[in-house]
């Protein structure tokens, strides 16, 4: 339908999905490519499920239709399942193995699928599963997990790793540039083996 390369980043409000999408947008600028994006703001950010659409090379609307995403990056295992229908056949999924349990699971005893069941359900996609929290902590700060995720997905994107790394350096807080550069490279090394 469109010539854009469509990336959906999903997670939970507060996990840094917006910074991750800004990094991709900046990388597009560095490569002089058009880009469109859409994201969740406002109250929905308060611990709710959030999504960022990024259409590399996009020149029309910002929304990726279900079944059209080339790449899904999920900061949470359960959110990967929730948005998996956005991925096209043969699309790639880069997923943080961790799962934040929705409060409804405790307060209303809502049934939650097990980690194994979710991973099995995602098995029909090209799945790259990683422990971004641990890798981010090793890089110097658990807050850099969004950059670890981008690193792991870098090989699947039509953007040069150097552009992505340059975008990371431009957008993260000055004091954390080194940590985030390490986080990006750690993610990239892992993603290369997926």
């Amino acid at each position, binding site marked *: 339908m469109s010539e854009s390369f469509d990336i959906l980043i999903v997670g939970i409000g507060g996990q840094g999905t917006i910074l991750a999408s800004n990094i991709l947008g900046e990388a597009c600028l560095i490569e002089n490519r058009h880009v469109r994006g859409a994201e969740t703001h406002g109250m*929905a950010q308060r611990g709710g499920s959030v999504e960022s659409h990024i259409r590399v090379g996009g020149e029309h609307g910002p929304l990726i239709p279900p079944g059209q995403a080339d790449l899904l990056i999920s900061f949470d295992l359960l959110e990967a399942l929730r948005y998996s229908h956005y991925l096209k056949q043969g699309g790639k999924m880069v997923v943080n193995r961790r799962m934040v349990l929705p409060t409804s699971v405790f307060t209303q005893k809502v049934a939650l699928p097990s980690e194994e069941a979710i991973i099995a359900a995602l098995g029909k996609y090209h799945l790259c599963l990683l422990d971004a929290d641990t890798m981010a902590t090793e890089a110097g700060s658990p807050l850099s997990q969004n950059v670890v995720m981008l690193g792991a997905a870098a090989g699947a994107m039509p953007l040069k790793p150097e552009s992505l790394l340059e975008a990371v350096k431009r957008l993260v807080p000055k004091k954390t540039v080194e940590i985030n550069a390490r986080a990006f490279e750690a993610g990239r090394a892992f993603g290369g083996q997926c």
Partner: protein
Amino acid sequence: MERRYLLGNEAIAHACLEAGVDFVCGYPGTPSSEVIDTLRTQPDRSYYLEWSVNEKVALENALAAAWCGVRALCTMKHVGLNVAADPLMTSAYTGVTGGLVIMSADDPFAHSSQNEQDTRCYAHFARVPCFDPASVQEAHDMIPKAFALSEEFGLPVLFRPTTRICHSKGDVELGEIVKSSRRGDFHKDPRQYVVIPAHTRILHRKLNEKQPALKKRLVELGFNRYEIRGKTAIIASGIGASYVEELLPAGISFMKIAAYPIDEDWLAEFVQKHDKVLVIEELAPEVEEIVRQVAGNVPVFGKKNGYAPYEGELSPSAVAAIMEKAGFPVKTPLSANPPVPDVPARPPILCAGCLHRSAFYAIKKVYKDAVYPSDIGCYTLGLQLGAVDTTICMGASITVASGIAHSGEPRDVICTIGDSTFLHTGIQGLLNAVYNGANMTVVILDNRITAMTGHQPNPNTGANACGVESPPVSLDAICRACGASFVETIDPYDVTGMVNLLQEAKKRSGVKVIIAKQMCVIMARRSGVRRGKYRVDTEACTGCGTCVRFGCPAIEFVDEKARINELCNGCAVCADLCPFGAIVREGKK
């Protein structure tokens, strides 16, 4: 020329700088807030800027500035325009000298709103021009044109981006920033600014006389355009036009509408060249109604004959479905990929350590069988705690409470309202309730900030929009001045204290006010407050579930025991609630 990757609202803010805006005001509301948030943090501001206390106040301020010949921007969300509707309708009569652009951001699908009203209807109603951008770049490009048009026709201009423009991003070509240079100069002219009947009748005629030339100018501006490619046509407006362009195959004509009022002659010429026309637009059938007026025998497909929905937002999939239903091919059919069923929902939730949760807990403990009117803010999420029975619009907690109390409803009525909402339109309700002798309790959830929309300061914060210190208003003094019989302030983290106060209020008659005052936990964290985390002593925990039912996202329940995760902000309320003393500060035994 610089190209940057910007949020729609950031691009709009930049365009206002390019237009040399002199005066900026508004009231926060998703999805509009980031325009002023961007402008108020600019270095070297040469323009005046304020967060006003509500939209009516904002629009009257902006209108007056525009009367003095300066360029004024006033921002709000769509429902804010209801609050500002009174000055809006008559501002079309008085007109303006300096450009006045009123940004009213619509929210199709009500992502963060109480309804899906369409600002284009207000433009039609008030007979003022309206711009409806299809992309972030177009939103940016329209702003300088909107100011110029406002000045040319002496009319306020409505600018109506939707959520998918405000909170979309794109690579945007930016222009040069122009420093604000105009200084206000009010030319006295009672025939224009004093709308007594004798004046207003003439002003109304003048407004109507502006319309034909306005329509012609909007065609010349080129935001409405078409291409004839075949015998069938699609006419689309706003962001819908972007989705259509993505899906449109060759051989189908396309018209894009982005500015109102539409010139009927120009529209008729296009429609009459086709055998069949499909209209695609979000929300109200504003375009479709005019297309039907000029279509003659040409069949029109749209909302009015069931081909497109009146409600919700458009998306590529929704547009494809409308096109297919109306017999229009799409470039590449979209795959129908249904979502995985039964994935547990993850709705937004009050933060760990949020003052609202403890206030609601105390309210529910004392007022067990009561009616709980509430209002617009983060605390509307108290719905999940069973502590919100009504929410309709800003300020309507106190008025709904007094209405219920006077109706004969036998249960106690206790309402909740945030500090910013109270200052927006809550005070009049309190004044009215006291004046008319209602029996009810008002809890002002005072977190010192307008939190939900992104932590904008308000008169309660102690600083204005530009960070300049301002004396924080005394909510206590306002409530006492309104005549409330019982006004007390308490920290809601002190659940026992708050329960005692509520019990005291419950015994009394009249209007009682409790101000539950504690800083928003996000702001507390940003300003460096570190309370230390809590943990569960698993030996003391009996798994009774009292803390879990409190509903804090920091409290989990694993292997029949409570567990506190890293979200804990150390408010210590759960430690207070635990009947077994099993929740203790980290580092303590």
